[in-house]
């Protein structure tokens, strides 16, 4: 075991998968000589050369489109979107082409599209996106977002080995802030499996990504107030691990859904709907959502702090929920 950062875990996953499988390659803007805007691909070009670490033009459509083509030929491309916000530029290629290809003609598209997501670092309206809800209504795509270094590595390996297109959202706030134990030996975190980060019996906080840490901090505060909080880290957003979600609700009967994307139209709607539809009999209280405010992501630190979900907001909502 070694303690490494979330960022290093991603880098290791790329490195090891490329070393183990010649078909894996990386492409994106500035991923080669520069090692990526956040240095996630640092050192890859030295080891694997220009042919497998491709610096592309500023062309998100071509990055994803050519990855699809290469994957048709048996390759395993991993595309970096420099900031995940720019995934909007290749939305068509992902939703219309990649997502439907297997269904239409049995032509699987084993690509990974990854990039730095999320806020909390003063990125402003164009560098703070949490895009999962954009893609949740498109069958054929898979989506993951890790919250720990362990998962960052294991989920990326699983994504690369997966035969379907996987969107891998890495939370840039966690890149260097989160460190944890990662085994030396090869492992994967299977897609579609959530994980209970903290067991509890009074209340379930269902979340993922950077918000897992917010939830855990809130749980610590709530403990002091006598509330025993369960924190469920979804890890996979598509497919969702419905069993783990429903099991947690069955246990606590109270659900707080927490995500960093803005509230209306966010993935919290889907989660709340699953609970309201399939675990209604277990519910003792409304399903509460805590999320970012319904506005674009602002730049100034005081605004961003007011915009994002915070430990305080989570604690307050959780208390309302247990008092219901």
């Amino acid at each position, binding site marked *: 075991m070694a303690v490494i950062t979330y960022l290093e875990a991603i880098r290791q996953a790329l490195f090891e998968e490329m070393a183990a499988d*010649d*078909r894996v*390659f990386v492409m994106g803007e500035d991923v080669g000589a520069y090692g990526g805007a956040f240095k996630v691909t640092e050192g890859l070009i030295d080891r694997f050369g220009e*042919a*497998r670490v*491709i610096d*592309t*033009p500023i*062309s*998100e*459509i*071509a*990055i*994803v*489109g*050519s*990855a*699809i*083509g*290469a*994957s*048709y*030929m*048996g*390759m395993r*491309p991993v595309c970096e979107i420099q900031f995940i916000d720019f995934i909007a530029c290749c939305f*068509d*290629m992902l939703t*219309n*082409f990649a997502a*439907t*290809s*297997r*269904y*239409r*003609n*049995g*032509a*699987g598209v084993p690509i990974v599209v990854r990039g730095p997501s999320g806020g909390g670092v003063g990125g402003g309206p164009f560098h703070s996106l949490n895009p999962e809800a954009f893609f949740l209504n498109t*069958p*054929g795509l*898979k989506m993951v977002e890790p919250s720990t270094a362990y998962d960052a590595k294991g989920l990326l390996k699983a994504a690369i080995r*997966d*035969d*379907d297109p996987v969107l891998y959202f890495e939370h840039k706030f966690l890149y260097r802030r989160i460190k944890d134990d990662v085994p030396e030996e090869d492992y994967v975190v299977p897609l579609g499996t959530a994980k209970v980060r903290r067991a509890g019996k009074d209340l379930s906080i269902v979340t993922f990504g950077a918000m897992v840490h917010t939830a855990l901090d809130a749980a610590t505060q709530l403990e002091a107030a006598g509330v025993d909080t369960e924190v469920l880290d979804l890890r996979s957003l598509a*497919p969702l691990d419905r069993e783990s979600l429903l099991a947690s609700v069955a246990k606590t009967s109270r659900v707080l859904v927490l995500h960093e994307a803005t509230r209306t139209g966010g993935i919290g709607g889907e989660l709340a709907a699953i609970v309201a539809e399939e675990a209604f009999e277990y519910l003792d209280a409304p399903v509460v959502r805590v999320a970012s405010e319904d506005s674009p992501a602002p730049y100034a630190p005081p605004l961003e702090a007011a915009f994002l979900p915070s430990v305080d907001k989570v604690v307050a909502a959780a208390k309302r929920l247990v008092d219901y």
Partner: protein
Amino acid sequence: MLARHVEERLVILFRQSKVIGGLYRSLGQEGESVATAYALERTDAILPLIRNMGALMTMGVRPLEIFRQYMAKGTGNSRGRDLNIHIVHLPPAGANEPVIVGPISMLGDSISVAAGIAMGARMRAALPASRRAPGEDKKPPLVAMAWIGDGATSTGAFHEGMNFAAVQRIPLVVIAEDNKYAYSTPIARQMAIARIDERAAAYGIPHEMVDGNDMLAVYDVTKRMVVRARAGEGAALVGVDTMRMQGHAQHDDMRYVPKAVVDEWQQKDPLLRFRRVLVERRAATDKELDDVDRMTKAYAAGEADLAVNEPMPDPATVTRGVYAGDDFAVPRVELVKSPFAEDGSSA
């Protein structure tokens, strides 16, 4: 100079495309789909658009497959899930078969996918022998060919794909079809250049314009571009000057096209011209060509009849095969003896 048997092959293919294409809207421009694809090797990749059915058949796709698709049969490659010529054929790495990726409707998207296919093939060729499939080493370097309409060259997707292919020196040959209209929009409202091949000037790749209704000329120019692409000299674009002689689709009466223009292009029909050339060069007699015509018509009718009687897809399968793991069987595209089968190479 083309060998006689090449010309004969061409005419058969062309007729096939004419017969089926007549129903489905490539009237007046079928020639270029056939003549361009004919410049490829059997194992190359094609990404046709809706009007390039001729390219499919040139690569050996059995017409039955196309009828199945048009009739949304459960036996078709998309099993009734997608339209007309939207078929995909990804043969095993070592097979002596073409890579085929049918259109997706979002115009322009296929260019970067085509670039990726050719790039992926190049990467495969660099894999250690142990990683390659039996037979793969014997295949010539893959060239991808994609067709694109005048209108579709206005999309951002076209631009990004072309530029990427140019920078990466990818063996991609793009056939840009100036057929005067995009739906009802005349080319002058689509671009402010007079020659569609100048779209390629922004990418620093070779480009040439050719009379799209002169099949032999189309073949010659395309062949040159294919040869240089295969030799590692990178992407190229061929502009073809042709005319869409029917409406965009069946419901479109084309009233926005001046009658004089239609009449003028009627004279330039690629079929009639090619026929004249064949006869002049004594590559075929009128009688032989009439026979070919009858033969292909009958062949197409037979294929259509076969398709008609095949079953529709089972509604219970509707959610199958969205993801891997639940692999719902996909019928392989049936290939017939193609022009490449005989002589190995098309030239």
